[in-house]
């Protein structure tokens, strides 16, 4: 059998998803300007991807069940976003979605391109830390962005991404996710979503940014053993539909990115403060080389850095490292 054009398959999924009941093969063929045989071939290709499609000699095709896969056709169906998700590339397995996005970005992939994988064999966080990425349990995706702003402003990108992830979790799982400075999304003090933003700069401009988001969706306790982490399934007591969550995540990221591009930094900080659990708490900040500071988090400065009041009353600003609420 000849190779199938994934885009055409996506279109067929779109046709079937949007239909309340059976759609005739003839109608699909006419709308997509392909032959009825081509429709039939592509429906079979969908079946191989795990779609359950009923066919009826007189009525046509009906989508009974879509697979639990973050396929572009499913994620982009009904997606309301300007930039993020314009193009979605799906992989069964990648070493790391950030690595693939980085490679594509260097090769000139347009802004808004999303790389999503069902599993990562070398999922990573900052500083060489691993991100547990079992197959079909989480959302592992990376977005390529090309913000026209100086590198010094990109701290806001990470604040935006954190707010977006927290909002998507609230929307889809009904759980009150909060954000620990600057971008850990947590439930009950345990990490449920991590963000890894990597920049490629040239002199004083950003060539591209890759924002990687990992969400623990349907992970079981055994998947996260030994980690200070949780999943939406563990917290809500039931499986959460990944496709809807991925779509919500792209929509929220898109909204946040629009605010960033428009220079609405105040809005971003305000939204961040609404979902943050850090301000007013006693924290310990540790740089990655081991230097420690303890105090009370009092707010963010105009660069998005965390302000803490030390024992003696002096205020210090934290630009990185790890922050623990104690």
């Amino acid at each position, binding site marked *: 059998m000849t190779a199938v054009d994934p885009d055409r398959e996506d279109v067929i999924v779109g046709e079937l998803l949007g239909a309340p009941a059976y759609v005739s093969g003839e109608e699909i063929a006419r709308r997509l300007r392909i032959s009825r045989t081509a429709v039939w071939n592509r429906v079979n290709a969908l079946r191989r991807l795990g779609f359950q499609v009923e066919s009826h000699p007189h009525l046509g095709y009906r989508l009974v069940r879509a697979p639990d896969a973050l396929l572009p056709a499913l994620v982009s169906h009904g997606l309301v976003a300007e930039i993020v998700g314009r193009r979605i590339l799906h992989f069964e397995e990648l070493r790391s979605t950030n690595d693939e996005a980085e490679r594509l970005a260097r090769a000139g992939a347009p802004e808004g391109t999303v790389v999503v994988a069902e599993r990562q064999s070398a999922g990573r966080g900052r*500083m060489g830390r691993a991100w547990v990425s079992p197959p079909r349990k989480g959302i592992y995706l990376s977005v390529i962005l090309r913000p026209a702003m*100086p590198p010094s402003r990109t701290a806001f990108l990470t604040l935006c991404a954190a707010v977006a992830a927290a909002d998507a979790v609230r929307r889809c799982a009904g759980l009150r996710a909060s954000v620990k400075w600057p971008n850990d999304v947590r439930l009950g003090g345990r990490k449920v979503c991590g963000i890894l933003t990597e920049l490629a700069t040239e002199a004083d401009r950003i060539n591209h940014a890759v924002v990687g988001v990992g969400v623990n969706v349907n992970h079981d306790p055994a998947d996260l053993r030994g980690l200070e982490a949780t999943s939406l399934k563990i917290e809500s007591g039931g499986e959460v539909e990944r496709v809807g969550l991925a779509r919500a995540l792209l929509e929220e990221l898109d909204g946040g990115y629009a605010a960033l591009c428009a220079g609405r930094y105040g809005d971003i900080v305000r939204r961040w403060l609404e979902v943050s659990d850090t301000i007013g708490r006693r924290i310990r900040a540790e740089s990655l080389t081991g230097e420690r500071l303890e105090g009370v988090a009092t707010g963010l400065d105009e660069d998005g850095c965390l302000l803490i009041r030390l024992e003696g009353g002096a205020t210090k600003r934290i630009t990185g490292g790890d922050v623990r609420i104690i």
Partner: protein
Amino acid sequence: MNIKEIREIIALMNENEVTEFTIEREGFKLCIRKAGGAGAVAAPAPAAVSAAVPAPAPAAAEAAEGQYIVSPMVGTYYAAPAPDAPPYVKVGQEVDEETVVCLIEAMKVLNEIKAERKGRIVEVLAENGEPVEFGKKLFRIA
């Protein structure tokens, strides 16, 4: 190469309005530059010879600036991608435009800094984990 030959090179440069001259051989490098009237830039090769070119104007700051890789942002400087990983670059290492020389982390955004020019790392000017300001000199490069 002796001082007489260097004088001749400078004379030729002046006659022909040549602003830069570099010659490199085993264990020896000579670089004479008149960037907007700047003095000669010392080359770091073992047997480097520098020669001053009479400068009509004060030394141009840009000429010296061009020899440093600076931080594009406020953040924390990291010499390696992970605590137990070897540093991206070491003194003496040759780099080109695409070579990643360090990471600057600001608010968990990791920014890979590239050399953006060909050369050799002569000096590392930041400590691993050190907070750096915008424009802070990170490496001297020749």
